[in-house]
């Protein structure tokens, strides 16, 4: 499901936006720093400062995320469903390492702690290149 075409969108170069809702159908739109590829059919988002987005997901596991190709600039909408939350393991460690590396370069190692990673199954991917008039 995650094609080679999509992979560069999951490098955290163009910020992604995630829309979640409460169980009372109140939407929330928030920017996330990076959507990580986990495997062919899963992605993950890091939770550092526990926020409305993550509270919503606990009530309603559905989300829609827009990512954008850093070179071609094609937008994609990912339809996601939260399947698990990880606080340890390979994925958590990889995401933690990213955070640690950058935090340490700005002297902020103690501040940036990865709380957890939210792992989503990709239900479908929508290609939105038709939103742009290409030359």
């Amino acid at each position, binding site marked *: 499901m995650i094609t080679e075409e999509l992979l*560069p969108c999951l490098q*955290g170069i163009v910020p992604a936006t995630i829309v979640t809702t409460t169980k009372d159908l109140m939407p929330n739109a928030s920017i996330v720093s990076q959507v990580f590829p986990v495997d062919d059919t899963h992605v993950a988002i890091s939770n550092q400062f526990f926020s409305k987005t993550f509270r919503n997901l606990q009530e309603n596991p559905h989300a829609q995320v827009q990512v954008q190709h*850093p070179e071609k600039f094609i937008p994609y909408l990912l339809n996601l469903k939260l399947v698990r939350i990880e606080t340890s393991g390979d994925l958590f*460690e990889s995401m933690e*390492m990213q955070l640690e*590396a*950058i935090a340490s*370069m700005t*002297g902020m190692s103690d*501040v940036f702690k990865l709380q957890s990673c939210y792992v989503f199954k990709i239900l479908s991917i929508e290609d939105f290149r038709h939103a742009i008039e290409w030359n």
Partner: protein
Amino acid sequence: MELSAAKNEIEEIKKKIAENQQLIDSLNEKLQRRTDEVKIIQSISSEILNSLDLDRIFQKTMELLDDVFGFNHSMILLKVPNEDKVKVSASRGYETLGLGAEVEFGKGVIGVVANKKKILRMVGMPYRMRYVQTVTSESNYTSDSAPIELPGLKNVKSQIAIPLLLKDRLIGVYAVESEQVNAFKAIDEVILTVVGNQIASAIDNASAYKTQQLLTQAYSRFVPKELLALLQKNSILETQLADQTQGLYTIMFSDIRDFTNLSEQMSPAENFEFINEYLGFIAPVIEQYNGFIDKFIGDAIMAIFPGCPSDAVQAGIEMQERLAQFNSQRIEQHKEPIKTGIGIHSSTIMAGIIGSKDRMEGTVIGDGVNLASRIEGLTKSLGHSLLISEATFKLLSEELSSKFEFLAKVKVKGKLEEVEVYKTR
């Protein structure tokens, strides 16, 4: 009607063919990349794993990975023993990169990889830095540590670092940087991890070899490599009890007259200083003349000249000259000059390893060794500081033997027959 339907069908088929061709091209591209990547693993295996030269391993590795993956700014950092740091040991593509620059575990991409022993690829670094800086200022956080200086490109935008692991032990880190925002995208992390392991293995072998070399060098300062050579051993590891050989060797004994008296007048530190200074004058002469020192026994030297007896005799003559120099220095220092005695004898000697399983020594034994020692002892009673045996005398060249003359026929302890000794004219 039929014609246009047929035409449509043809268009459809053409379209399909074009799509298929695209697919084939894309697969070929992937295959080519995969083939290149496999080739590189093979290259690294043969060229590098067989090299024991660390520098060559480093340079070859970085060159190969540049050729196949386009890694044109790379560096290899090795773990500093007993410290949580890695140190730059080689680099490629940097104008000024300090060899020896250190990175602490946990700092930056390299430090985090060293700590966690997992590959890390980070792209879009300027964006991430800004994100962290925004969060930091928005949250009114103050850092307790200053932002750190890391070796590498000032304008680095992407970085990948691979741990070099031997089983689970960190040997070092291989780090690559790029000024492209989204570099390293086609990289197969699995392949790079395998490459990392191979490099680690090669480095470890080379390091082990280097250590072995250093050890061997160190050993040879304590155990003469010339003795090992006589026993036809390549290293001290090969020696064992009862290793032996024999040959016509010339043995030289030399010591300082009345050393005990002299010694008592000096402090222990002065004693060692004196002896080492003296030996520093005298001992190199032996090596100069193709001999080697088998033992020091306090102030006494026992040397072996496995080759030509003339060597030993010429060495003895020069040792006396050096002694004169040593003595003038002592006089300048208002110290008493010293007297030495040198005795030389040639015969068939056995060289080998003696002792017991846990304490062994390489040495020479035989009648001839004792005789050389006795002759040296005669230098005091006969009043001449350099004495050689008849056996040695007979083996000298005409020119050299003309410098010597018969002194006396002497009865020495341990020998039935009397022994002729010769002195310098």
